[in-house]
């Protein structure tokens, strides 16, 4: 993806975000924050690739040791991003259930 395409996606997504999120009522603002936190755990995608990087496609050889520094940084990132994603969605679910039960 070239820079302009990436920028296009970014700009359009910001507009979609504004449209969608202005409709969230104040009563749900805390679950909105924890839920959007969980979504920002999407960094896990990059973290997984860094943590698992082991094959150089250009050389098509498998490196048993991988790339130690990249892998280690990736591992730490996987831990933090997973906390965000798993913990974020779960605690949001817990809160939203409380809003729901008096329906």
């Amino acid at each position, binding site marked *: 993806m070239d820079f302009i395409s990436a920028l296009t996606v970014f700009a359009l997504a910001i507009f979609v975000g504004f449209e969608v999120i202005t409709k969230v009522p104040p009563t749900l603002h805390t679950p909105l924050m924890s839920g959007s936190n969980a979504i920002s755990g999407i960094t896990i995608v990059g973290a997984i690739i860094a943590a*698992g990087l082991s094959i150089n496609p250009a050389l098509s050889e498998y490196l048993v040791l991988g790339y130690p520094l990249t892998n280690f940084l990736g591992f730490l990132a996987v831990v933090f991003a*997973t906390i965000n994603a798993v913990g974020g969605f779960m605690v949001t679910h817990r809160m939203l259930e409380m*809003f729901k039960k008096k329906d």
Partner: protein
Amino acid sequence: MPSALINIAYLIAAILFILGLKGLSHPRTAVRGNLLGALGMFIAIVVTLARGNLSFELIFAGIVVGSAIGVFLAVKIQMTAMPQLVAIYNGFGGIASVLVAGAELVNPIGDATLQPLVAIAASGIIGAITFWGSLVAFGKLQGVGVPDQPVRYPGEQLVKILLLGGSIVLGAMVVLNPAEVEMYWIMAGIASILGVLLVIAIGGADMPVVIALLNSYSGLAAAATGFVLSNSVLIIAGSLVGASGLILTNIMCKAMNRSLANVLFGGFGAIPETAGTDDIYAGKVKRTSPEEAAMLLESASRVVIVPGYGMAVAQAQHAVRDLFNFLESKGVEVEFAIHPVAGRMPGHMNVLLAEADIPYDKLIEMDNINPSMTQVDIAIVLGANDVVNPVARTDPKSPIAGMPIIDVDKAKTVIVIKRSLSPGFAGIPNPLFAADNALMLFGDGKKMIQEIVSALKEA
């Protein structure tokens, strides 16, 4: 897995995130919305694992450790501690971006063109500010390590500008000379110091703004990481979170009639204690007892409860529910008036009251309840202060001038439950406490509500 398929799966994940946030537009659809978001995340993770060229040991170790911590936090956290949890989650999002960008910089097979390098520097700076700023916010909210009061010193703005300039210069050096990896970490270190200084200068009651802003930063950091990896799902998800945080920040600032710059760089900390407290309160403050409050409530037909941070501190939400249930059973109309900045994060009061089983349609926004405030028999102010201070309407020189407030002073009778006459976060006296229609009930919020309920039941 072919890359077209991977990208389609990422697109589906992005659509699920948008649908998930859309679901939050109503409490009825919110649970399903959140599950859609989680499904999107699951799909994104699975396709990433299936893309090939990966060894799984460290990935799974990381996922196991992270899931264990995440589940533990999500299950164990008290609802009153939600602001701290959200603060720390913001921080984790930030540090994950710093690490991924750092990993990409040292990645020996990555391509080092301009776009990823600029994005690496941006991820590192935004992520580090987010992480350390969030840790300080966590400390302030949890009451560990850092003072709740703003920490201010001469020349602080200059120091922050220099740090920001310094981290940008180092970021440019990373872009120009990516082989010198240590520059990246020095840059992140300087941005970290900036993150600490930015938040340490902000007082506890301004935390709703700060948390919302850090929420936005954590999204922008994720979006920047998306530019590093040229990955659309990261860019989309990050932008959504960034937009969400900005909207909340804006709502919080409007609810205090202050600009974001004022919250971040000015703040109430700079305002000296206002004199004349004695003139306002002397001889005019009327005390009441739980028994008298109960008698007044018995003859009321419409009651509005205004909760503030004090309700969270006193853990009074369950006692409030008992009062609510009793009054409702006697045919009294009871509603809750929620100020946007009540508590320590957006929607803080709503979550606590939902935890106590108060139906959400009883939680009324400030703008919707104010027009009918004159028809309220009794307004109970529970642990709130600045958000009900009529000075905001009357004194243009006051630090809270123009801030929208809940007009409890227009109710027939106001019962203020508070430990003492001490000022709120803005540091100014509240003439409401000395008003003719106001009664002060001094004591712990939870205990006072419980005593009112037992007095009502005995009667």
